[in-house]
């Protein structure tokens, strides 16, 4: 029972962080690609 609850919390955490983390990571990568022009 406790293990099932822990798995459920872990899943919720993974989903919540992915929900905000994936778009943010995409934006950061796009910005880094642009920023590299400074060193070209």
């Amino acid at each position, binding site marked *: 029972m406790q293990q099932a609850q822990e798995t459920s919390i872990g899943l919720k955490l993974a989903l919540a962080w992915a929900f905000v983390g994936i778009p943010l990571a995409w934006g950061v990568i796009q910005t880094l690609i642009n*920023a590299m022009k400074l060193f070209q």
Partner: protein
Amino acid sequence: MSFLDRSHTVAGPGFSRWLVPPAALCVHLCIGQAYAFSVFNLPMSKLLGITQSTPEDWKLTELGWIFSIAILFLGISSAVFGRWVEEGGPRKAMFTAALCWAGGFFISAIGVYVHNLWLIYLGYGVLGGIALGIGYISPVSTLIKWFPDRPGMATGMAIMGFGGGAFIASPLSVWLMAKFSTATHVGVAETFIVLGVVYLFFMIVGSIIVRVPAPGWKPEGYTPPVVAQKLITKDDVYVYDALKTPQFWLIWWVLCLNVTAGIGVLGQASAMSQEMFPGHITPVAAAGFVGLMSLFNMGGRFFWASTSDFIGRRNTYFVFMVLGFFLYCAVPYTGSVGSVALFVICFLIIISMYGGGFATVPAYLKDMFGTRYVGAIHGLLLTAWSAAGIFGPVLVNYIREYNVTHGVPKAQAYNTTMYIMAGLLVIGFICNLMIKAVHHRFHMKPDHEAERAQAEVAAVSEPAGA
């Protein structure tokens, strides 16, 4: 709509506090779009002419007001609605911010469609600005209550999202406009509608996830420090009583001066780098430099706010003021010796401290005024941002203009500004030095305590499930 009430957001047993930062990020990543609004300026100046502006098209100066109105209303709404946000709870505030933010985009889309600029001022400027103010402060006190052991890190994470929102919005908006544009149409209205729908969805998800801790909740294994720390209060100060304290106004000036120094160079970084290093920094490289500055602005929010949990808030601002002073003084030297690398390093550190100033201030307020009304007090403090938004660019632009018209070479036109910015940081240092613990006469009296206890009883009587 009782689902939105504070009493329905009290976390049940087994709720992980680590779900609250992504909830806060859902809101801050969306409203952070404001930093990227300039990507619409050029397309909106060619709505009628399509390939080039016609006399009937809106001018860039007229379009510039949209962002200014939004920032003005950010300051006004965070100050006016701060207490409501604090007492109504984070879900109601986030939900309201979501409706206003998306509504602002939808009204602006109509404004673009019928070519009426006043509708955009009203939509993105007024309604969007209100969403910015409410959305910005909504998760702050909730995060502080969930992370009493690391308040700086927690609020730093959310406020980092505000800096990072532009990273998503800028390429996404450019991509959407490219998708919707045709030979006879620019595609701004459709982009506004899509952004409005996407942001509404994200922000509502955030409002569903967010929870407030049950009264008396503490993180597992956390014991509040027994020995009282001089600059960290255990008492609360009522929101409007905070205005009567010198500490509030000293922090107001510390934030205002730190932001003035940063915002002035942030807006002019591209032009400044090209003029200080003609032939060395091309327009393309300058755009890369601006991108790198945005990354440090975002990263600095998390880094400095987290660092403040270890070295203290006042010491963190001392670092900003002292290090900032030396870096601003070093900038003219980097220009005179022609060192692009040193110039870039100086500005990247400066801009990280600009972001850090925003992110560390909620925890500073919590240390001074307690957690009860910290969100509302933070809302009042954000007027310092609005003021700095005017001072900073004006200082940089007008002094540069004055120097250039008086025969100073463009490469040296910013030197005076840099020394003035360094001077502002000296004033900021003195203000920070004067900050002492709030006098106990400002701490909440029993009638306020009773009001608080009543609210907490109401919250416990109707707990929500996790």
